[in-house]
């Protein structure tokens, strides 16, 4: 096997490359959305696809999210594999009825005779100074809808591997792109063999013995940084990157918590009714006798996403994670 020199690549480039490779391999893959063609998307994730594959394969649509997703449903009914871009998290809301009433249920409604092999790409989350309606973390809405897969990469390699897997999936995938990681870099070469990451598998990003940080997407780098900082306090933290919220990898998560005996769930979505409640409950139900302390949550506050000049107070950062870790000294307190 020849080794290819890896150069720094951004998550944005890896996502673009994933669509390009999928489109080159499979003529049924079509990209559609607002601004995805000539402009290459407002984040340039679809840059060059219209030029390379033509406007019929990478299509600038009218500005209408329900229409974009609704026509994609029809395209999938006819055997295409649409990859839809919702420009920003909160712009996807007009398409919710299509997503919930049709995309997620078509296989079920038709007794398995009509699948929905489409991908809805949603740039999500804050931390980029976006104004109102540009920074929502909407994953809980998607997670609550049976029939959808919900995945979110945290690394450049996963961005490629998970998007390839999402496009190849015979089921609909809501692909959440942490937009503040778009410009994160890693040594990665698309020309080197890149694993297509299976959907539904979490990964231990950093092994540790004293507690598990369960996280995903934009909060993964935060947790890795917190784990480094926690070494000074004598904590050896394990960081589990979920990668897939649905299906949920109970096995990897619970194996980690059973090893460490303590867990904190970290995400920037709101805490109340948020993904962390579900995750904490699952861990408690399965690992109760291994737990030395309650499963804690570090989440965004239960507020509408704040204006950009205040978002640093809302987003869970390293200090807030470390505070939670300190509270895992349950026995000492009781």
């Amino acid at each position, binding site marked *: 096997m020849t080794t290819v020199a890896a150069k720094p690549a951004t998550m944005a480039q890896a996502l673009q490359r994933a669509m390009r490779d999928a489109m080159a391999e499979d003529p049924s893959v079509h990209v559609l959305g607002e601004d995805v063609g000539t402009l290459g998307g407002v984040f340039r994730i679809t840059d060059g696809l219209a030029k390379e594959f033509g406007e019929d394969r990478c299509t600038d649509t009218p500005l209408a999210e329900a*229409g974009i997703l609704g026509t994609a449903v029809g395209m999938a009914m006819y055997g295409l594999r649409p990859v839809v871009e919702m420009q920003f998290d909160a712009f996807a809301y007009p398409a919710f009825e299509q997503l919930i009433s049709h995309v997620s249920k078509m296989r079920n409604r038709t007794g398995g005779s009509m699948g929905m092999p489409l991908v809805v790409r949603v740039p999500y989350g804050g931390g980029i100074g976006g104004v109102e309606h540009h920074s929502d973390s909407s994953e809980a809405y998607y997670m609550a809808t049976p029939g959808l897969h919900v995945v979110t990469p945290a690394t450049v390699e996963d961005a490629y591997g998970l998007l390839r897997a999402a496009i190849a999936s015979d089921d609909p995938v809501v692909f959440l792109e942490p937009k503040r990681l778009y410009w994160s870099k890693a040594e990665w070469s698309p020309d080197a063999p890149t694993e297509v990451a299976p959907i539904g598998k979490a990964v231990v990003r950093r092994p540790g013995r004293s507690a598990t940080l369960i996280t995903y997407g934009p909060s993964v780098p935060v947790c890795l940084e917190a784990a480094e900082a926690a070494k000074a306090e004598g904590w050896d933290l394990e960081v589990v990157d979920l990668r897939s919220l649905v299906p949920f990898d109970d096995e990897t998560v619970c194996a980690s918590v059973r090893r460490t005996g303590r867990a904190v769930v970290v995400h920037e979505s709101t805490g109340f009714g948020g993904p962390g409640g579900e995750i904490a409950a699952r861990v408690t139900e399965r690992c109760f006798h291994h737990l030395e302390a309650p499963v804690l949550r570090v989440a965004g506050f239960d507020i509408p996403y704040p204006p950009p000049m205040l978002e640093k107070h809302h987003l869970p950062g390293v200090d807030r994670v470390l505070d939670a870790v300190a509270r895992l000294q349950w026995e000492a307190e009781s």
Partner: protein
Amino acid sequence: MTVQELPGAGAAYRPAPPPAWRPRTDPAPLLPDPEPYRVLGTGAPLDRALMLRLYTELIRGRRYNAQATALTKQGRLAVYPSSTGQEACEVAAALVLQEQDWLFPSYRDTLAAVARGLDPVQALTLLRGDWHTGYDPHEHRIAPLCTPLATQLPHAVGLAHAARLKGDDVVALAMVGDGGTSEGDFHEALNFAAVWQAPVVFFVQNNGFAISVPLAKQTAAPSLAHKAVGYGMPGRLVDGNDAAAVHEVLADAVARARRGGGPTLIEAVTYRIEAHTNADDATRYRVDAEVAAWRDHDPIQLLEAELTSRGFLDDSAKKAAAEAAETMAAALRERMNAEAELDPMDLFAHVYAEKTAQLREQEAQLRAELAAHENEDEGER
């Protein structure tokens, strides 16, 4: 400071039109005729074979509506939204399509699906409650009967667009009611179809009421067909109880779509003789005189009178159509009276292509519950 006081404003100021602006098209040809288009009673030439086929299907359709309504009264169907009075629209929609074309029905369009060839029992699965869509959409190219309003319209656009990209000769016919035209998806579908010049026909059955709300409270447009103009597609207005006219207008639009002419919006003016469903009391929002007037403009009577006067239809042909409908109804009754065979484990069968670990756990839980019940039952015996 008022606008008049702004520097440069005033009598001397003449705003120039923005550069290169002009209307995209002359809207006049897109405007529908003010009166619904009619064929029956006008002396227009009629295709005898087609008319007899329409007639047979109308008779069968009305019998189907009556039988299905009776099944709701017997508790065999949870609900049945009858299309009695609208059969001409239902039947014409089905007959106008070629085999490779796709039909996108709403929940009231069971008859269109049956007239296209769907098993009458499979068409009622949703309404009986044993599954949602009781058929494979690919088999007759009929999308699932759609309960949310107008959400199937963008699907029709996407499918037709995809087929054209693949170079296939496929037209999609999407059906919606007058109430559905108020939904955002109606707008988005028409807009996408016109921009993409997709081979789609949008077929609105204006039956007067969205459950209880009359058309005047639904729209201020002169007609629903007028809405086409704003999207840049032709709008046609047709008498929805004139089977020959509905078929002709739909056939024109389908042919236009097939030759690359793009989408058409058709409004058929008709009337829902029955209530919205058996759960609705129509006497609360409409008067008997109105219903009686529409009963006098009945699609079956209109066609029967015309075909009889032209010598296309005699008593023996009428009798044959009635008997065929009765046979269908008897078979439907018998099959619907048989208990549905359901497998509870199907709950988990079609959520994902491959079951998640969580669904496998829940499947095991239900299996254990069922086994426990079975053991209890045996213990009691």
